[in-house]
């Protein structure tokens, strides 16, 4: 088994294959709006509080000043008119013996005019006028100033709120416009495919950073594209170049067979060599097949019956294996695909099932609804089912498999948009490979 930790994650050819599930991620514009909203709410609250405190203290000072000046007026009136009683409950003067300092308090007084208890600010103190101590009390209604206060703060808050709403939408549309080239290019990048020969095309931008980003993206993608092409070409070239040396080796072994002077042991060695050449050849053919699918060289798409194709494949297998294969076609499936590729698809699935079948149990092939299942017996589920369709991944230690059969299955499925999957059925101990057709 291969070292799992070193396996690269699945190669992504089309950016669209990258899943869009990005939890904990916020959209750029939403993020900008969110920041703006939070800032404006904080500013609104803070400035509201400051305005409230400031206006309140201003109003209180105003009331106090008024109270002191009213008291002064009462005192002046008392000098001329010692029997003055004032205008209760706003201004009052009464004779007293004890002298008191000026005291400012809040007090609740029943106002008979309004027929309710009201909050008043009260300044009281004694004053000696013409040898007589008078206690003078002046009051001012607090309610009025509170009304003014709330009116001011509310007006302020509504103005600032409206301003923020206006700014919010202005900002949003501005941001959308500003980032427009970025979003357009992001979409282009998403639909970019390594397979296509077309280079990535990005919209020009008059913003320096975006322009730089574009240039970097273009340089990067064209490099990756070139590398990808080279790699593909390399695999193909190597596979083709190997054919001739393999042909020479094979031919030499056969000429040796043909000479009468070899012994049984030498024949064994030679035919085992022949077998290894066969494996190399098989590996080569599969690599070439993968490259061909990549290069879209299978274009003879036609409407074929999956049931019919499977039946033919199974018939072929009965000649080359003792394992029984039972076909159970409950439904009829057709698909538009290349006939040769359809055979290769099922041959590979069946080969895999036969090779890894446990005991002498029959293999069953089920055609149901829109999927085909190839089911073979096993002992336990795969330890790394997520790698099963990867190139050169081998779960079993069987030395004679190329590790390409199932990756060819995957490649063909990807090419036509079919969905291959694997699962192990615990209770019946069966490996189930399923291909879902999009019919």
């Amino acid at each position, binding site marked *: 088994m291969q070292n799992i930790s070193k396996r690269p994650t699945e190669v992504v050819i089309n950016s669209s294959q990258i899943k869009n599930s990005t939890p904990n991620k916020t959209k750029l514009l939403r993020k900008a709006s969110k920041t703006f909203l939070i800032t404006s709410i904080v500013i609104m609250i803070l400035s509201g509080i400051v305005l409230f405190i400031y206006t309140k203290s201003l109003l209180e000072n105003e009331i106090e000043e008024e109270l002191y000046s009213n008291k002064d007026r009462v005192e002046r009136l008392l000098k001329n008119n010692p029997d003055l009683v004032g205008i209760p409950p706003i201004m009052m003067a009464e004779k007293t013996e004890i002298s008191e300092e000026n005291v400012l308090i809040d007090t609740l007084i029943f106002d008979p005019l309004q027929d309710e208890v009201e909050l008043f600010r009260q300044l009281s103190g004694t004053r000696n006028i013409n040898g007589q101590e008078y206690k003078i009390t002046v009051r001012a209604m607090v309610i009025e100033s509170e009304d003014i206060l709330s009116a001011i703060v509310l007006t302020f808050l509504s103005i600032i709120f409206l301003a923020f709403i206006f700014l919010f939408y202005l900002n949003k549309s501005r941001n959308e416009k500003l980032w427009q080239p970025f979003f357009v290019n992001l979409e282009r990048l998403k639909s970019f495919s390594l397979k296509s020969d077309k280079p990535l095309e990005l919209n020009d931008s008059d913003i320096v950073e975006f322009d730089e980003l574009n240039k970097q993206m273009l340089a990067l993608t064209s490099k990756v594209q070139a590398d990808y092409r080279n790699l593909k070409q390399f695999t193909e070239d190597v596979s083709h170049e190997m*054919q001739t040396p393999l*042909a020479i080796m094979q031919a030499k072994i056969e*000429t040796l*067979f043909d000479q009468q002077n070899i012994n049984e042991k030498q024949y064994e060695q030679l035919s085992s060599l022949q077998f290894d050449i066969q494996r190399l050849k098989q590996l080569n053919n599969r690599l070439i097949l993968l490259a061909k699918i990549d290069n879209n060289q299978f274009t003879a798409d036609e409407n074929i019956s999956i049931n019919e194709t499977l039946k033919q494949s199974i018939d072929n297998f009965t*000649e080359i294996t003792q394992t029984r294969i039972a076909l159970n076609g409950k439904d009829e499936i057709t698909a538009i695909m290349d006939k040769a590729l359809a055979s290769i698809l099922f041959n590979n699935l069946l080969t895999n099932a036969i090779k890894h079948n446990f005991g002498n149990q029959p293999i069953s092939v089920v055609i149901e609804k829109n999927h085909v299942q190839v089911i073979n017996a096993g002992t336990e589920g795969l330890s790394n089912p997520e790698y099963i369709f990867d190139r050169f991944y081998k779960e079993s230690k069987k030395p004679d498999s190329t590790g390409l059969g199932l990756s060819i299955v995957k490649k063909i499925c990807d090419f036509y948009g079919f969905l291959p999957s694997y699962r192990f059925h615990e209770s019946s101990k069966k490996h189930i490979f399923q291909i879902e057709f999009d019919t």
Partner: protein
Amino acid sequence: MKYLIAEDEKELQQSIATYLSHEANVCETASDYHEASEKLELYEYDIVILDINLVTGSGLDLLKKLKKQQKKCGVIIISANSSLDNKLEGLDLGADDYITKPFHLAELNSRIKAVLRRGQFGGDNTINFQEIKLDTMARSAYVNGKAITLTRKEYDLLLFFITNQGRVLSKAIIAEHLWGDDSDLLDNFDFIYVHINNLRKKLTKEGAKYIQTAYGSGYKFIAD
């Protein structure tokens, strides 16, 4: 029979020549386009084995020339490229068969025999080996004039044995001949036993014991 082997890989060319030189055949070789072209101008061949990628030119061009001259020789193309387009192009140009590297020499031999049967002896569809007679049109087999019932694979196997008589055939060679690319599907060739044993039984019943085991696990079709 006179063969021309136009193949620029000397080793492969020599192996093919050695292998085909049995049965009183004459094999000439050409290592590049010009040599092949010259030999084709000067001499007559029954079969030309033509590599598509000759160092100094394309085998397909040679094929075009050959067809223009209206020479009556069979052409078998060998190529390292298994692509269908190449194959179709070759066959369209008038090649009689197409075989992809790497191939078994026994396979090449049986293809040559098939081309010869179709061409030179046009009309004669029978192959005789001792008391065995094969009718290649009807795909039927007779022993001492008595028809024997063979499955499709058994008939192919018998034909392959007769065309490669006296040669050692390993299971890998037989599997590839009978199942072509499908022989890659399974990695052991045990399934061959079943078919060979069935054929052997049917022939032995009629007294034709020609399938012999060679070196333990190979086969040889030979008259004692």
